[in-house]
Protein backbone atom coordinates (compact mmCIF):
# COMPACT_ATOMS: atom_id res chain seq x y z
CA UNK A 1 0.00 0.00 0.00
CA UNK A 2 1.29 3.41 -0.98
CA UNK A 3 -0.12 6.75 0.13
CA UNK A 4 1.14 10.27 -0.45
CA UNK A 5 -0.91 12.58 1.71
CA UNK A 6 -0.97 15.88 3.59
CA UNK A 7 -2.73 14.32 6.60
CA UNK A 8 -0.86 12.75 9.49
CA UNK A 9 -0.88 8.96 9.82
CA UNK A 10 -1.66 6.70 12.76
CA UNK A 11 0.94 3.99 13.32
CA UNK A 12 -1.50 1.75 15.23
CA UNK A 13 -3.95 1.67 12.30
CA UNK A 14 -1.14 0.98 9.85
CA UNK A 15 0.19 -1.82 12.05
CA UNK A 16 -3.26 -3.46 12.01
CA UNK A 17 -3.38 -3.19 8.22
CA UNK A 18 0.09 -4.70 7.95
CA UNK A 19 -0.60 -7.75 10.10
CA UNK A 20 -4.30 -8.47 10.52
CA UNK A 21 -5.55 -9.22 7.07
CA UNK A 22 -7.67 -12.16 6.08
CA UNK A 23 -5.17 -13.54 3.61
CA UNK A 24 -2.49 -13.80 6.22
CA UNK A 25 -3.79 -13.89 9.77
CA UNK A 26 -0.76 -15.15 11.71
CA UNK A 27 1.87 -16.27 9.25
CA UNK A 28 4.07 -13.23 9.47
CA UNK A 29 5.76 -13.42 12.84
CA UNK A 30 8.15 -10.49 12.29
CA UNK A 31 7.04 -6.89 11.80
CA UNK A 32 9.57 -4.08 11.30
CA UNK A 33 8.50 -0.46 10.97
CA UNK A 34 10.36 2.78 10.34
CA UNK A 35 9.06 6.27 11.07
CA UNK A 36 10.90 9.42 10.02
CA UNK A 37 10.06 12.69 11.78
CA UNK A 38 10.91 16.34 11.23
CA UNK A 39 13.95 17.25 13.30
CA UNK A 40 14.21 20.67 14.89
CA UNK A 41 17.82 21.28 13.90
CA UNK A 42 19.58 20.99 10.58
CA UNK A 43 23.14 22.15 10.02
CA UNK A 44 23.22 24.11 13.30
CA UNK A 45 20.08 26.07 12.45
CA UNK A 46 16.79 25.80 14.28
CA UNK A 47 14.07 24.64 11.96
CA UNK A 48 10.73 26.35 12.54
CA UNK A 49 8.79 24.64 9.76
CA UNK A 50 9.19 22.49 6.68
CA UNK A 51 7.46 22.22 3.33
CA UNK A 52 7.52 19.02 1.30
CA UNK A 53 7.01 19.17 -2.46
CA UNK A 54 6.64 16.15 -4.73
CA UNK A 55 6.06 15.13 -8.33
CA UNK A 56 2.52 13.67 -8.36
CA UNK A 57 2.31 10.51 -10.39
CA UNK A 58 6.03 9.88 -10.54
CA UNK A 59 6.11 9.68 -6.74
CA UNK A 60 3.67 6.78 -6.64
CA UNK A 61 5.35 5.06 -9.62
CA UNK A 62 8.77 5.24 -8.03
CA UNK A 63 7.48 3.88 -4.70
CA UNK A 64 5.68 1.04 -6.48
CA UNK A 65 8.91 0.24 -8.31
CA UNK A 66 10.99 -0.03 -5.11
CA UNK A 67 8.28 -2.19 -3.51
CA UNK A 68 8.46 -4.53 -6.52
CA UNK A 69 12.23 -4.72 -6.06
CA UNK A 70 11.92 -5.43 -2.32
CA UNK A 71 9.34 -8.18 -2.86
CA UNK A 72 11.52 -9.80 -5.52
CA UNK A 73 14.45 -9.81 -3.15
CA UNK A 74 12.98 -10.79 0.23
CA UNK A 75 10.11 -13.12 1.28
CA UNK A 76 7.85 -10.38 2.64
CA UNK A 77 4.20 -9.46 2.55
CA UNK A 78 2.83 -6.31 0.92
CA UNK A 79 4.69 -3.39 2.54
CA UNK A 80 3.07 -0.11 3.53
CA UNK A 81 4.67 3.20 2.56
CA UNK A 82 3.08 6.48 3.68
CA UNK A 83 4.77 9.79 2.85
CA UNK A 84 3.42 13.18 3.80
CA UNK A 85 3.68 16.35 1.69
CA UNK A 86 2.85 19.97 2.40
CA UNK A 87 3.59 22.00 5.53
CA UNK A 88 5.10 20.18 8.52
CA UNK A 89 6.40 21.21 11.94
CA UNK A 90 9.29 19.91 14.05
CA UNK A 91 8.33 16.57 15.58
CA UNK A 92 5.74 15.85 12.88
CA UNK A 93 5.79 12.43 11.28
CA UNK A 94 6.97 12.49 7.64
CA UNK A 95 7.25 8.90 6.47
CA UNK A 96 6.15 5.41 7.53
CA UNK A 97 7.51 2.13 6.19
CA UNK A 98 6.06 -1.14 7.47
CA UNK A 99 7.17 -4.64 6.47
CA UNK A 100 5.90 -8.02 7.70
CA UNK A 101 7.65 -11.31 7.06
CA UNK A 102 8.02 -14.81 8.45
CA UNK A 103 11.72 -13.98 8.92
CA UNK A 104 12.97 -11.07 10.98
CA UNK A 105 16.17 -10.61 8.97
CA UNK A 106 14.10 -10.25 5.78
CA UNK A 107 11.77 -7.77 7.49
CA UNK A 108 14.68 -5.64 8.76
CA UNK A 109 16.53 -5.69 5.46
CA UNK A 110 13.50 -4.98 3.30
CA UNK A 111 12.37 -2.11 5.56
CA UNK A 112 15.81 -0.48 5.50
CA UNK A 113 16.10 -1.07 1.73
CA UNK A 114 12.74 0.66 1.18
CA UNK A 115 13.64 3.80 3.12
CA UNK A 116 17.17 3.89 1.65
CA UNK A 117 15.81 3.69 -1.90
CA UNK A 118 12.96 6.10 -1.20
CA UNK A 119 15.59 8.62 -0.07
CA UNK A 120 17.39 8.62 -3.42
CA UNK A 121 14.69 7.59 -5.91
CA UNK A 122 11.34 9.09 -4.91
CA UNK A 123 10.74 12.66 -6.13
CA UNK A 124 10.21 14.52 -2.84
CA UNK A 125 11.96 17.77 -1.93
CA UNK A 126 12.22 19.40 1.48
CA UNK A 127 12.39 23.11 2.15
CA UNK A 128 13.16 24.28 5.69
CA UNK A 129 12.25 27.55 7.36
CA UNK A 130 14.95 28.86 9.67
CA UNK A 131 15.86 32.31 11.01
CA UNK A 132 17.55 33.00 7.67
CA UNK A 133 14.37 32.23 5.73
CA UNK A 134 13.35 29.25 3.64
CA UNK A 135 16.00 27.08 2.14
CA UNK A 136 15.95 23.85 0.18
CA UNK A 137 17.55 20.90 1.93
CA UNK A 138 20.68 19.61 0.22
CA UNK A 139 20.80 15.99 -0.85
CA UNK A 140 23.19 14.07 1.39
CA UNK A 141 26.08 11.94 0.21
CA UNK A 142 25.33 9.50 3.06
CA UNK A 143 21.92 8.76 1.53
CA UNK A 144 23.57 7.76 -1.73
CA UNK A 145 26.07 5.50 0.06
CA UNK A 146 23.28 3.96 2.17
CA UNK A 147 21.49 2.98 -1.04
CA UNK A 148 24.69 1.75 -2.68
CA UNK A 149 25.09 -0.94 -0.03
CA UNK A 150 22.05 -2.72 -1.51
CA UNK A 151 23.69 -3.09 -4.93
CA UNK A 152 23.69 -6.79 -5.68
CA UNK A 153 27.01 -8.44 -5.10
Amino acid at each position, binding site marked *: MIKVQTDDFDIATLYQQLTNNELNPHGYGAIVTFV*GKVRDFNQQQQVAAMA*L*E*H*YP*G*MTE*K*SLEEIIVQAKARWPIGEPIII*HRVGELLPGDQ*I*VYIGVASAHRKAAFEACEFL*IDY*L*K*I*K*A*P*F*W*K*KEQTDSGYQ*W*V*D*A*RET*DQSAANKWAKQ
Partner: protein
Amino acid sequence: MLTIVFFAQTREIINQGSLSLEFTPAFKDLETLRQHLASKGDKWDLALQKDKLLVAVNQQMSDWNTEVKDGDEVAFFPPVTGG
Protein backbone atom coordinates in the same frame (compact mmCIF):
# COMPACT_ATOMS: atom_id res chain seq x y z
CA MET B 1 4.48 18.41 -28.42
CA LEU B 2 6.66 17.91 -25.38
CA THR B 3 5.50 18.68 -21.85
CA ILE B 4 8.33 20.01 -19.70
CA VAL B 5 7.93 20.21 -15.91
CA PHE B 6 10.18 21.61 -13.19
CA PHE B 7 10.33 21.01 -9.44
CA ALA B 8 11.85 22.47 -6.27
CA GLN B 9 14.84 24.83 -6.76
CA THR B 10 14.77 24.30 -10.50
CA ARG B 11 11.18 25.53 -10.66
CA GLU B 12 11.82 28.39 -8.24
CA ILE B 13 14.81 29.79 -10.15
CA ILE B 14 12.94 30.03 -13.46
CA ASN B 15 9.72 30.83 -11.62
CA GLN B 16 7.80 28.48 -13.87
CA GLY B 17 6.33 25.04 -13.21
CA SER B 18 5.79 23.77 -16.73
CA LEU B 19 5.77 24.61 -20.41
CA SER B 20 4.83 23.03 -23.72
CA LEU B 21 7.36 22.79 -26.50
CA GLU B 22 6.88 21.88 -30.15
CA PHE B 23 8.72 18.63 -30.77
CA THR B 24 11.41 18.73 -33.45
CA PRO B 25 13.85 15.97 -34.49
CA ALA B 26 16.61 18.40 -33.47
CA PHE B 27 15.96 17.27 -29.87
CA LYS B 28 18.05 14.17 -30.29
CA ASP B 29 18.33 13.40 -26.60
CA LEU B 30 17.71 14.88 -23.15
CA GLU B 31 21.06 16.67 -23.19
CA THR B 32 20.13 18.51 -26.41
CA LEU B 33 16.80 19.46 -24.87
CA ARG B 34 18.48 20.66 -21.68
CA GLN B 35 20.88 22.84 -23.67
CA HIS B 36 18.01 24.27 -25.69
CA LEU B 37 16.15 25.28 -22.52
CA ALA B 38 19.28 26.57 -20.79
CA SER B 39 19.81 28.96 -23.71
CA LYS B 40 16.52 30.76 -22.93
CA GLY B 41 18.28 33.12 -20.52
CA ASP B 42 20.56 33.49 -17.51
CA LYS B 43 18.06 32.09 -15.01
CA TRP B 44 17.35 29.10 -17.24
CA ASP B 45 21.07 28.52 -17.64
CA LEU B 46 21.48 28.64 -13.85
CA ALA B 47 18.49 26.41 -13.12
CA LEU B 48 19.59 23.76 -15.60
CA GLN B 49 23.26 23.46 -14.57
CA LYS B 50 23.93 19.80 -15.07
CA ASP B 51 25.99 19.07 -11.96
CA LYS B 52 23.03 19.00 -9.57
CA LEU B 53 20.19 18.21 -11.93
CA LEU B 54 18.17 15.05 -12.47
CA VAL B 55 15.89 14.30 -15.39
CA ALA B 56 12.88 12.01 -15.76
CA VAL B 57 11.04 11.03 -18.92
CA ASN B 58 7.42 9.98 -18.55
CA GLN B 59 7.96 9.83 -14.77
CA GLN B 60 10.95 7.49 -14.94
CA MET B 61 14.44 8.63 -13.91
CA SER B 62 16.52 8.83 -17.11
CA ASP B 63 20.04 9.45 -18.40
CA TRP B 64 21.06 12.48 -20.41
CA ASN B 65 21.62 10.44 -23.55
CA THR B 66 18.04 9.10 -23.51
CA GLU B 67 16.22 9.77 -26.79
CA VAL B 68 13.38 12.32 -26.76
CA LYS B 69 10.13 11.32 -28.50
CA ASP B 70 7.11 13.38 -29.49
CA GLY B 71 4.56 13.36 -26.65
CA ASP B 72 7.10 12.81 -23.86
CA GLU B 73 6.72 14.41 -20.43
CA VAL B 74 10.19 15.54 -19.40
CA ALA B 75 10.91 16.65 -15.82
CA PHE B 76 13.95 18.53 -14.52
CA PHE B 77 14.63 18.67 -10.80
CA PRO B 78 17.41 18.64 -8.19
CA PRO B 79 18.49 15.50 -6.27
CA VAL B 80 15.60 14.29 -4.14
CA THR B 81 15.45 14.86 -0.38
CA GLY B 82 12.36 13.03 0.90
CA GLY B 83 12.01 10.50 3.67
